């Protein structure tokens, strides 16, 4: 079975870490990832929510600055895409919208991407 583990924390606190504190946490996590390599799929560290853009899909698709802030919908899935810039990412989100209207897509740039560690 594949599982996604979604990471939540206080953004203000985490982005207030000094470089040393940040490196220490990332170092500890790297050790765990290494230990779990046979079962570790891709992982990503996201940029702060200030870098996010949201495409609200209905009634008409509309682009909004910032993260998806409503609480009445639930997180149902995610995509990782490799594109040149935000406009290209929004274009992908619009193509997905055409196939599946309703809800919203939050487009959040990825700060650090770790590929699948499993041996295929």
């Amino acid at each position: 079975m594949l599982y996604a583990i979604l990471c939540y924390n206080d953004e203000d606190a985490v982005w207030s870490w000094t470089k040393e504190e940040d490196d220490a946490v990332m170092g500890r996590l790297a050790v765990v990832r290494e230990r779990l390599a046979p079962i570790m799929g891709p992982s990503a560290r996201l940029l702060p929510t200030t870098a996010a853009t949201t495409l609200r899909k209905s009634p008409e698709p509309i682009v909004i600055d910032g993260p998806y802030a409503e609480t009445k919908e639930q997180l149902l899935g995610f995509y990782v895409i490799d594109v040149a810039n935000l406009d290209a990412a929004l274009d992908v989100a619009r193509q997905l919208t055409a196939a599946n209207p309703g809800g919203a897509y939050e487009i959040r740039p990825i700060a650090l991407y770790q590929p699948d560690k499993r041996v295929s």
Partner: protein
Amino acid sequence: MTDMGWINGAITGARPAAVGALLRYFRDLDTAEEAFQEAALRALKSWPANGPPRDPAAWLILVGRNAALDGLRVRAKHTALPPDEVLSDLDDAEATLADRLDGAHYRDDVLRLLFICCHPDLPATQQIALALRIVSGLSVAQIARAFLVGEAAMEQRITRAKSRIAKADVPFEAPGAVERAERVGVVASMIYLLFNEGYSAGGDPARGPLCDEAIRLARLLLRLFQTEPEIMGLTALMLLQHARLAARFDAAGEAVLLEDQDRTLWDGRLLAEGLALIDKAVRHNLPGPYQIQAAIAAIHSRAVRAEDTDWAGIDALYAALERMQPSPLATLNRAVATAKVHGPEAALTMITPLEERLSGYYYYFGARGAFLAQLGRLAEARTAFDRAIALADTPAQAAHIRRHLDGLMRSA
């Protein structure tokens, strides 16, 4: 995870909102700061044992407010301090306070706190020092080190700035849209000044954290004003410039020119965030000076090698900046890009009329010398370089021009 690193991070992260709310409540900066100090001390005692609260800012505001009120009562009645148990039932109150904090109140509290540091009567250095003390919570000793002055002198500077603010009218009512936009602009300038204090100091470890602090404040401002393209631009500009830190100086501490920098040393995470923000800003189609400067920095960041740089794009952006904020410096900056696109002759024609106004400016003669040298006018180039050396502010600047001169000697 409730280790001390997390707790310190949570307290620092919550500080602007908490001090801002306490200031609104007590309408006195010293009382607000003392109340926050007391709340932070209690947090250090209580959070390791009980775990951090769901909303650290709300906890700190409530505890700080109660502590300060107790203090005021004690001073008024000379009665003993109430025991800590009085404050123990925090959970219910925390929820309602957190609800109130989510709205515009919180945003205006933080903006007000930043804004009072930018009082027009205060010189720029005092504005920055005050923001670092009050909003960022750096110690007087840290700020003194960053400004290369003694601790007592900095203490005095901050006290003086505070007393000036205490006498001034601090607006506590919620600002209107125009006023809010003006405040945001003033705060943005202060944040960029703070950044430049750190940036111009280069690798100096005492002043380097000023850049981190400026970026943190800009992210904070952007979170409050998510749709302001100029705040996106300001944040992007600082991120893209700060990303180059590790490459800006060589082992001997000398400045390395952008085109000579080892681009693999640029910080990828800062670059990614800066590029993402400038992408967001551009979509608004409301260009401003911070966005244009960030867009220029973004072009440099996207070039894998210096020779891949889109100089025509940079030339066009500098032309736009020049129209928006005409100044001899804007023209001088543009000339460097023009030289790459249209050749040194065009660049020289562009900057020659500036000579009178930039006669005391190192960069002017450095650029002029470089253009003349490219045109093969070596004697004139040497004269320009000599003047640049005489005007250099730092040994690194002088050394950089001397290398140009050595180049001239070899080609002569």
